[in-house]
């Protein structure tokens, strides 16, 4: 799912002017602030903090789904262990590494495509033309459709026997015989990527559009007077100016893509050719009932995403600084 959390930190809280800020009122306000925060913090600890710690803990045990209370601490066995001349554990499982590769491949390709298409759609929506509101509403439709539903809709359109996409492609003479888009390992990843790009390009487009609408008009007028080609203006003026907004859109999409589950689950089920890290972890946890092993995979997924975030923020900051020089 794509929880559209909005980005940049809200500016610091507005303090009251100094002369009005008596310490008593201030202290009362700070106390009230913590009381108001308490329920939210309690809920977040209950649904996020505590479960996350328990997942870390389970990853070092042999817990099974049927009985979570009776567990044995087994150290790093779920991750990696050498026994009888062979390596076992998540880190020694080729299917896990396949899932890591699939997820990374999926994330990089689909987010790149979304950024390119998102910019194109945003540029179109930023132009003034009749019916712009209608087009914007149309573009929002894929975003509003539940991921499960869009996956089912595409699964039907991509159906090998009765799907309209095979039908059209055969009519146009592009393919000779029907393709099993979701079942054939060489196409299924592309089918998944296509559905994801269709569904989330609107989100990227909206963020880019918001950035475009805040650009100063005067440099465009100057460029027009000087007769500079619009494509050149785009790469020299527009793109650098919307880069911060793009970076925000990219990190949110990337974090979302790295935890992908629904699209793949519906389109291709547990097939290893498209299995993502989330699918792998859930399969171990729920279907194989192996909470310890599944938790180890979840923990690794968490670490990978945390590392990706840190690396991205670090690189992004560096790049922004370079751009600013």
């Amino acid at each position: 799912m794509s929880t559209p959390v909005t980005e940049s930190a809200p500016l610091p809280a507005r303090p009251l002017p100094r002369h009005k800020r008596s310490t008593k009122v201030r202290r009362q306000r700070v106390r009230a602030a913590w009381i108001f925060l308490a329920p939210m913090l309690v809920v977040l600890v209950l649904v996020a903090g505590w479960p996350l710690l328990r997942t870390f803990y389970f990853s070092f045990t042999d817990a099974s789904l049927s009985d979570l209370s009776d567990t044995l601490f087994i150290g790093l066995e779920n991750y990696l262990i050498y026994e009888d001349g062979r390596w076992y554990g998540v880190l020694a499982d080729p299917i896990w590494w396949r899932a890591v590769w699939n997820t990374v491949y999926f994330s990089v390709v689909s987010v790149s495509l979304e950024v390119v298409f998102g910019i194109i759609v945003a540029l179109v929506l930023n132009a003034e033309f009749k019916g712009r509101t209608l087009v914007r509403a149309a573009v929002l439709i894929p975003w509003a459709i539940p991921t499960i539903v869009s996956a089912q809709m595409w699964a039907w359109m991509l159906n090998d026997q009765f799907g309209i996409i095979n039908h059209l492609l055969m009519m146009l003479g592009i393919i000779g015989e029907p393709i099993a888009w979701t079942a054939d390992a060489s196409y299924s990843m592309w089918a998944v990527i296509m559905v994801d790009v269709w569904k989330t390009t609107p989100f990227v487009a909206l963020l880019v559009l918001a950035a475009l609408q805040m650009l100063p008009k005067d440099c465009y007028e100057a460029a027009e007077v000087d007769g500079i080609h619009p494509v050149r203006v785009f790469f020299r003026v527009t793109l650098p100016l919307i880069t911060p907004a793009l970076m925000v859109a990219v990190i949110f999409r990337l974090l979302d893509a790295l935890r992908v589950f629904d699209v793949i689950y519906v389109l291709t089920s547990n097939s290893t050719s498209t299995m993502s890290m989330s699918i792998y972890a859930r399969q171990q946890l729920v279907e194989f009932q192996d909470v310890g092993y599944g938790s180890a995979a979840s923990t690794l997924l968490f670490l990978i995403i945390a590392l990706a975030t840190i690396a991205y923020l670090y690189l992004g900051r560096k790049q922004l600084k370079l751009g600013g020089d």
Partner: protein
Amino acid sequence: MTSRQLSKHATRIGFWVLVALIVVIAVFPFYYAVKTSFTPSSELFRVELWPSRLDVSNYVQIFSQRSFLQAIFNSILVATSVVFIALLLGITASYALGRVRFRGRSTVLLVILGVSMFPQVAVLSGLFEVIRTLNLYNNPGGLILSYTIFTLPFTVWVLTTFMRQLPMELEEAAIMDGATPWVIITKVFLPLMWPAMATTGLLAFIAAWNEFLFALTFTLTDSQRTVPVAIALLSGGSAYELPWGPIMAASVVVTVPLVILVIIFQRRIVSGLTAGAVKG
């Protein structure tokens, strides 16, 4: 002169072709789902762009299934409860984060941002244990609880941004009159925050309505499922013949309200999605 006019026309035509392409790509899959839902199962093997006639048998079939009606009811129950809880906790928290300056404020904001980003699978086993301990497994209550993990951070974040933008004179007068923070929230800010709350509430509703991983994992029986799970698990007599007609009918039923909401509130949604995004 003429070549210039020609290129101008070409650009115009190219632009409209692009617009048409975008609209077709965005709308066609949904249109095709609607079309399929009105096609009787016996005619699905014929690929057609237009329905030859409107046949409602697929709709009759899904609405005669008790479990589907139950799933719709569960989804509405879960999504509205989640929105209510997220807004209630979010408005007070956003007041504290947006209007009061105190130590640890930026840490709290960072934690909230962190929670909204981490993968749901990472909490799956821990949350499963919490839900089972609270006796909420296979119960809408478990879903309501678990959905706050993604609706609450988002709600707090957006409401804080909105709260920040309100002028401080509002509050000063109330403080001078000796109003307590609770009175300030309910009497001063709440009336002004309705538009922002409607926006975030709508976005939280859509997110909760669409959620799949938790709904799939924390429910067991048909009577407790939500709509996305019901649709994903809809299958026919045999594993190879998926009932595409009823699947599309069910998809249309759960999507049409969302599409209508989005079209009515598109301005609001766009502002909610991008609030703060480009001001940093």
